[in-house]
């Protein structure tokens, strides 16, 4: 298979104006990936599937990654202390692993990112290109909260329909659905005490 950089140039040659950038993987596996802009992602995906040299007809794995807002400190000689802190805004990421059954190569890793983690979480669905995305994008919607525009049946898949939150997000807090059970363990008793705070002691009855 061509290198990820060559595939990027191939996409740009056919889709001028598309936002495609290379995300390098610093790890030992060196599976670099292409970051697609949401505006041209569908056309780029179709190109990856139908291009005679690539023919990535098999989308094996679709998953989400949550990247919450984080603070990084960078060296800056002008700032006091030589360092300056910068806030990197958070976003949700969807990762696709593409293979070619026809040509026997792969994987090509393709990513898309949302603008933020709260109100701009819509990305184009790639289910019209690869049918295998149908359930997996539903799972990313369910567990991460990415909304896929153009998905034929976007419902929760693992959690129940009435469920409100997205459990795979890093800042997910489990609901306090604790039930007391008699046990001698101190931490359980402590949790029970926090859960059922002691009622206020009644005022001492005045002496008759």
């Amino acid at each position, binding site marked *: 298979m061509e290198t990820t950089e060559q595939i990027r140039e191939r996409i740009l040659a056919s889709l001028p104006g598309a936002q495609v950038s290379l995300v390098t993987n610093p790890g*030992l596996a060196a599976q670099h990936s292409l970051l697609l802009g949401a505006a041209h992602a569908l056309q780029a995906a179709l190109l990856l599937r139908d291009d005679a040299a690539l023919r990535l007809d098999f989308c094996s794995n679709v*998953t989400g990654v949550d990247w919450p807002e984080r603070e990084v400190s960078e060296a800056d000689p002008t700032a006091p202390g030589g360092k300056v802190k910068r806030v990197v805004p958070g976003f949700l990421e969807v990762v696709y692993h593409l293979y070619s059954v026809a040509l026997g190569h792969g994987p090509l890793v393709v990513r898309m990112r949302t603008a933020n983690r709260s109100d701009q979480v819509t990305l184009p669905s790639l289910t*019209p290109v690869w049918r295998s995305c*149908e359930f997996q994008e539903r799972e990313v919607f369910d567990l991460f909260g990415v909304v896929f525009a153009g998905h034929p049946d976007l419902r929760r898949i*693992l959690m129940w329909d009435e469920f409100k939150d997205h459990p795979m997000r890093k800042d997910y807090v489990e609901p306090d659905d604790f039930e007391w059970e008699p046990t001698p363990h101190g931490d359980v008793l402590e949790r029970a005490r926090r859960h059922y705070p002691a009622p206020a002691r009644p005022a001492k009855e005045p002496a008759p």
Partner: protein
Amino acid sequence: MNPSGLPPLASLPGPQIRAVHDELHGDLLELSMGPHHPSTHGVFRMVVTLDGETVVKLKPVFGYLHRNHEKIAEGASYLGSMPYTDRLDYLCSMTNNWSYALAVERLAGQAVSERAEYVRVILAELTRLLNHTCLAGFLLQDGGASGTPLMYAFREREKILDLFESLSGSRMMCNYQRFGGCRADPSPAWLDSARALVDGYGRFLDEYEALLTGNEILMARTQGIGRLSPQLAVSAGVTGPMLRAAGVGYDIRKVDGYGFYPRFTFRVPIGADGDTYDRYMVRILEMRESIGILRQALRDIPAGPILDPKAKQRGLRPKAGEVYSRIEGPKGEIGFFLISDGGPNPYRYRVRPPSLINLTILEDMCLGQSIADSVVILGSVDIVLGEVDR
């Protein structure tokens, strides 16, 4: 909602059945099969819409066994998730272990000892034997052959589970693979009993096939039922014996050549019609090839260490980066996607579940078939709910 102007999903390949319902033909019936139904192989539910006995719509419902395996693994150490992978597809814990160990080894750059590579191939092929044997039994059970084929299958499965138990200490929850090798070294006596089992397995398959393969009822219930086209199978990400039964010769053991598979001679059986009978037959033929691989592996297995004692297990902190790694499990492509941020536990841990993704085209296969056939079609997909729901 469709920014590109592409055709909507309804125009994708696949049968489209339009039900007639007027005063003459009557109403459609919506039937909820499962989650407590013997034919659904666990807590799986299908909401089936029926026109008479014909399926006109089928929506699978998941999540009854969901415990968010991925979230739990993101809070555990790399080694701490290993026993949990046993619980995904609880028939095939050895291949789940291998796939996870392989992903971590690629992430952390650990080499595997030669003897361990052979042991992994042996255990993976034994797992394939037991999975496909059980599947054939369950499929016949779903078709109405109550008891006998399944009991024959379970008798043989128990012999393989005995081997697993004497090696790992547990029949099904083996927790056997480690990063860079395996946990316990198989003794010469163990290898001898594995050889004896492999030598006898062909005879069992002959007996099994004599009962089943040419059986008129099996043929009537499965031939031409639940056809799957190769184009749809590839597009829907179907993998494993289901993909090969649809006529696509794609086997990750051949394509990726992971482990020591390039050292072994074996063929990849493919189906001609993509129907339920082909899915049964491809699995039988795959078992015969597995016996061949096992013979070669048990003949050539070298002496040596099974696990480098210096290979880091506890407190493993792979360099920051990510990896997607996959193997050919008995049910299809079982893969793990790991992102490390350099910490002691994975930042992102994802299982690629073949059982769930193979269900994508369940509706397409069942449309236009009868309700009784949809049970057989589901049986031939070969799902385990521990993996579907995770």
